């Protein structure tokens, strides 16, 4: 089974956001595989180990994203592709065009990605891609069972659980709870350095451009919250006081 995982490198979720000269500062920032994409990588590895085949991790992003791809190779992926080009516009539409072009030249049974990225959070690229490739998809899955060319998945839809049956090739995006991503072992980190790693530009894909369909006009931090008040007293007094404040001062309940 040929499996491709769409992967994005993002800030670690414990990072604070600092804005400098109208953009997010990346000074000293720790980067990780987008947490949802990490579930996708893990799922790809488990499906390959069950059914045989090959796992390719693919990222559209800047040069530094190579680090996230190496991490996925260290987890156990077989090969990696980084598509990097300054002509790729910075939005989901542009990324989907690039991935479509790349994947339409590949043979695949299963495409996996994350439910959304924890930075821009658009949740579009994978679903756009499935639609452009004309393959079925299910977003936000919490389980995946494959037998032959059929897949049965469970989808988390705001707490409801939907069970769907799809025919492969298909695309799925991972929700938390799908699996528990492994940590790469030291020997695997060493092995990863020797695995095939391809870097492609738009020229390599035969694409003249991949224009963004949207653009950022401004960016700002949220307003600071004012200082709150601590409610003192016995637990019973605290509870009574809080209810009173919520009704009178905050007018919230």
């Amino acid at each position, binding site marked *: 089974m040929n499996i491709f995982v769409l992967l994005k490198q993002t800030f670690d979720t414990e990072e604070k956001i600092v804005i400098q000269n109208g953009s997010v500062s990346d000074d000293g920032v720790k980067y990780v595989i987008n947490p949802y994409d990490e579930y996708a990588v893990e799922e790809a590895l488990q499906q390959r180990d069950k059914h045989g085949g090959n796992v390719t991790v693919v990222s559209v992003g800047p040069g530094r994203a190579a680090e996230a791809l190496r991490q996925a190779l260290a987890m156990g992926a077989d090969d990696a592709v980084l598509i990097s080009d300054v002509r790729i516009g910075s939005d989901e539409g542009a990324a989907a065009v690039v991935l479509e072009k790349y994947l339409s030249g590949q043979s695949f049974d299963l495409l996996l990605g994350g439910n959304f990225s924890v930075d821009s959070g*658009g949740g579009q690229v994978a679903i756009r891609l499935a639609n452009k490739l004309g393959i079925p998809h299910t977003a936000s899955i919490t389980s995946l069972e494959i037998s032959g060319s059929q897949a049965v998945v469970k989808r988390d839809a705001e707490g409801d659980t939907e069970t769907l049956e799809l025919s492969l090739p298909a695309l799925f995006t991972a929700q938390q709870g799908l699996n528990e991503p492994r940590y790469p072992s030291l020997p695997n980190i060493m092995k990863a350095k020797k695995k095939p790693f391809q870097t492609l530009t738009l020229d390599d894909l035969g694409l003249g451009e991949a224009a963004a369909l949207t653009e950022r006009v401004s960016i700002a931090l949220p307003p600071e919250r004012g200082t709150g008040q601590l409610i003192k007293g016995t637990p019973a007094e605290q509870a009574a006081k809080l209810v009173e404040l919520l009704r009178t001062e905050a007018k919230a309940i």
Partner: protein
Amino acid sequence: MSQPVLVIAEVRAGKIRQVTLEALQGARLAAGDSAEISAVIIGSGITGLAGELASYTSGKVYAVDHPELVSYNAPAYLHAVKGIVEELQPSRVFLGHTAEGRDLAPGIAALIGAGQISDVISIESGELYKRPIYAGKAFEEKRFLSSSGVVTVRPNNIPPATLAETAGEVVDRSYTAPVDLRSIVRDVVRKAGGKVDLAEAKIVISGGRGVKSADGFKPLDELADVLGAAVGASRGACDAGYCDYALQIGQTGKVVTPEVYIACGISGAIQHLAGMSQSRVIIAINKDAEAPIFKVADYGIVGDLFEVVPLLTEEFRKVLA
């Protein structure tokens, strides 16, 4: 804008979701008062709902009513809107940023070659769309470069549309299932007891590691029942197995912006704060007076949640009776 603007309505549990009215208002804010705003409603047995929706917009309401559309299925729903979208060539399409809208919107965007701006919380003059990035650690304003655009609006942020002066006309559209439907919904299990949805809840009560066990959520559930609130959790509580990941609030998980957020036994890791710090009123209950959650709280109680929460439930029961 001479081309129409289209809103894709969402039906849940036999009702039009509140976020659909918010999407209608978003469309109005973006396109201006003179624009014609039409809507599509999809489902099974929705004639009454289509009429209800038509009272909120003077544009047309396209009703696609078919037994096979009783619950959301990606290819079937996209197929149901495809013909309408191709015929109308809308300049903008608005949906809710919900499980359904998030899934359907990129398909529509891909279909018409449109840009998409997701998870919009407000629409500013000059048709700028404000949205959170890094789950709300920062906000950006975006605009479309493409001639057509798809927008998903976050529940609870844009005020709902009010009744239109003249109701729109309902247009019935037929539906024929695509011959090659490669995705079938076998089963849908609704979450227990018709609980309030996290994203749309006006009040959220959330538990962290401090709840100590799955049973530790019981006092929170009881308070939620009294207040008509939804229950959420921190990553700590989910990772510890106290509750399902579907409840997780934070940069991984859901972002919520309720009127009132009550954090119980949550320390306030930065990734959790990203998911809730835009709530209007934040209450923190924690044993540790140094917990970072108190920095974002409007009201703080340093104390044991197992003592304080049942007392709160009792107190609210008294005043709300």
